[in-house]
């Protein structure tokens, strides 16, 4: 009972926040209300997760809203990165307003859309019904495309258009898959049934095999486009480099994971009938290809936000690969990678957001001497660069190592070798530019970087601390959540 009330409260808070921002004129109050709303979401999410781990899974309206470990993992990611991004937005936008890049009256639109965007992602994480899940994932694009276009010049518009057209087309291919999946269920459950994964999971092994396989492949290609899996990723570097930095943190760290959740939900209900090995092979192929494409573009990258975007494609490829490998260690690593990617990538978008505020350019070659001009951000750039590249003692090392070790131990040596090789090349391509920007001499005429408001440092340091702690110690409850989620995607 309390579970269902809390689930509704979780979804209501961002909606109330969105409505509230419409009536507020004061900039300071807008920042405050948003930060409070996201703190409240974080608290409610943590209470729900503790209920999930200690008592029954919270649910509301039958199977419509359900919190299970896999959804809980994504809920944790949405709530944490939503919170840090809301904090970061305040500092970042104040700078932008002071610099004249954003007009004060545009903040209301920004915050209203931010709340709706977070709402769609929260709904994704707690949907128990596959139809609602599809709607929520498709809605994440619709809510965030105007945010990608927020700066209102030509390049953001191009990025937003590409983003909305390609990911909506992807979502429709996925919808085709969901319709086919529904039809597969009709064979077993009768003409009108509850289209929830709880109901389908109960009869998963009796679904018609060919129909189940078709459904999964359609969803993999469709939501793969939204999750940034190559070769459907072409919109991603544009959207993730043109959006305001706090939005990039959410797009990259959270929204991609939401699309992955959609793929994994369908994976878990179609795998028993369609044959686990077929489905895993498809995930491995997309995963390896994404790694390959990402690393190829990382090596030649000159724009530091696009560098991070390609690193996201690399991470999504690894997550798909981990689940595709199927060994328990690799699947656990993939689940941990979802959390680590969200924390580390948001950390890096906050860091590059600070660089952008200080230097007013995204070109790697035009940024230099960060360590002298912005020492606090320099620490973040070096440590964060190492973290997203997967260096110990940061947590991405653990998850990436688990995925590769899982492959090697289950005799998938070729996959392990390929992934390890690509990760090493990617490592150099990510770490080198951040070190260069930090320690090189300041570029002529570009040295006049401005000091940043301490507020923009707090969320970044929080994320850095989290990635460091998770690198040496995964807390018990989080470990339970990760194992629960892994059990759902390795049936």
């Amino acid at each position, binding site marked *: 009972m309390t579970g269902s009330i809390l689930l509704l409260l979780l979804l209501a808070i961002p909606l109330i926040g969105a409505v509230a921002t419409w009536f507020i004129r004061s900039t300071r109050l807008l920042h405050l209300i948003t930060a409070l709303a996201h703190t409240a979401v974080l608290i409610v999410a943590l209470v729900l997760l503790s209920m999930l781990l200690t008592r029954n899974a919270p649910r509301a309206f039958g199977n419509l809203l359900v919190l299970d470990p896999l959804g809980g993992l994504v809920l944790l990611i949405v709530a944490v990165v939503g919170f840090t991004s809301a904090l970061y937005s305040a500092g970042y936008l104040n700078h932008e307003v002071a610099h004249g890049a954003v007009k004060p009256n545009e903040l209301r639109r920004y915050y209203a859309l931010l709340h709706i965007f977070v709402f769609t992602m929260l709904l994704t994480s707690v949907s128990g*019904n596959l*139809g*609602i899940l599809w709607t929520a994932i498709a809605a994440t694009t619709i809510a965030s495309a105007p945010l990608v276009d927020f700066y209102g*010049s030509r390049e953001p518009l*191009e990025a937003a258009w590409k983003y909305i057209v390609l990911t909506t087309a992807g979502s429709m291919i996925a919808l085709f898959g969901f319709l086919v999946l*529904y039809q597969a269920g009709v064979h077993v459950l009768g003409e009108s049934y509850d289209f929830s994964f709880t109901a389908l999971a109960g009869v998963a092994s009796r679904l018609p095999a060919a129909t189940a396989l078709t459904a999964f492949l359609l969803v993999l290609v469709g939501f793969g486009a939204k999750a940034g899996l190559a070769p459907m990723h072409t919109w991603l570097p544009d959207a993730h480099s043109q959006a305001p930095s706090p939005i990039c943190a959410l797009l990259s760290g959270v929204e991609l994971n939401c699309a992955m959740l959609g793929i994994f939900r369908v994976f878990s209900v179609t795998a028993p009938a369609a044959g686990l090995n077929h489905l895993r092979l498809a995930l491995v192929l997309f995963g390896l290809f994404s790694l390959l494409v990402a690393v190829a573009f990382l090596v030649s990258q000159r724009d530091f936000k696009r560098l991070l975007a390609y690193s996201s494609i690399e991470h999504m490829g690894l997550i798909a690969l981990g689940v595709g490998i199927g060994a328990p260690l690799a699947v656990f690593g993939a689940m941990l990678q979802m959390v680590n990617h969200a924390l580390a990538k948001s950390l890096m978008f906050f860091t590059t957001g600070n660089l952008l505020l200080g230097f007013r350019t995204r070109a790697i070659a035009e940024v230099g001497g960060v360590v002298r001009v912005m020492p606090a951000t320099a620490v973040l750039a070096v440590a964060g660069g190492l973290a997203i590249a997967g260096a110990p003692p940061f947590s991405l090392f653990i998850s990436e190592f688990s995925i590769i070790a899982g492959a090697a131990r289950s005799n998938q040596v070729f996959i392990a070798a390929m992934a390890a090789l690509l990760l090493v090349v990617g490592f150099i391509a990510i770490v080198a530019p951040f070190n260069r920007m930090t320690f090189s001499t300041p570029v002529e005429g570009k040295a006049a970087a401005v000091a940043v408001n301490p507020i923009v440092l707090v969320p970044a340091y929080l994320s850095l601390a989290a990635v460091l702690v998770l690198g040496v110690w995964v807390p018990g409850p989080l470990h339970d959540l990760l194992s629960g989620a892994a059990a759902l995607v390795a049936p």
Partner: protein
Amino acid sequence: MEAFEYSLAGVVLLITFWLLIARRVRGAINGYAFQSIVLAAIAGATYLQSFRLHLLLLATSSLVIKGVVIPLVLRRQIRATVYDKRETHYYVGFPTALLIGMLLAIVGFVAANQLAITKDLLGQPVSGVAIAVVLIGFFIAVARSDAVMQLTGLLVAENGLLLLGLVLSAGLGLLIDFALLLDVLVGALVMGFLIARMNSTIMSTDTGELTRLRG
């Protein structure tokens, strides 16, 4: 009764082909509105067969939202200069586009046979039409360079999915169908907003002009 639905499905396919080669933005939007109305009629006809209230609601709401609201709002958001524009560009020529459309229609019918869909309210031929409409819609969305035409392509593909949903399962249930409709409505509005922004930023809706982001 079935013959009536089959001929309506045929009309849906014909409109799709007409949209494939439409040269004016005005025509494309009107064509989409007309196609949505025919689809609503098919949903209404399936209601008369099964008397499930949900289908009647689906028929009326898609008639209102897709047949009237979306076309009207797009008409308002897209300024007259774009709306009355005659020439819209393909990355391939018009005859090639038509040929590809025919191939996609054949693929649609073959795929419908392969999927071995059980006969529900409507039969196999309609699901062939539905898949063909989805494929041609996607083709319009990727092969046209005009933003309004790309949006129309996506909307047409969605119409195809609605038809497929009707054939396969008479919809997914009231709540889900409404959530989907809401998604389509808001999605079309946001894309319309971006098109209006395009028109004021680059004085055109030709996405061929938006090619600055690379690598």
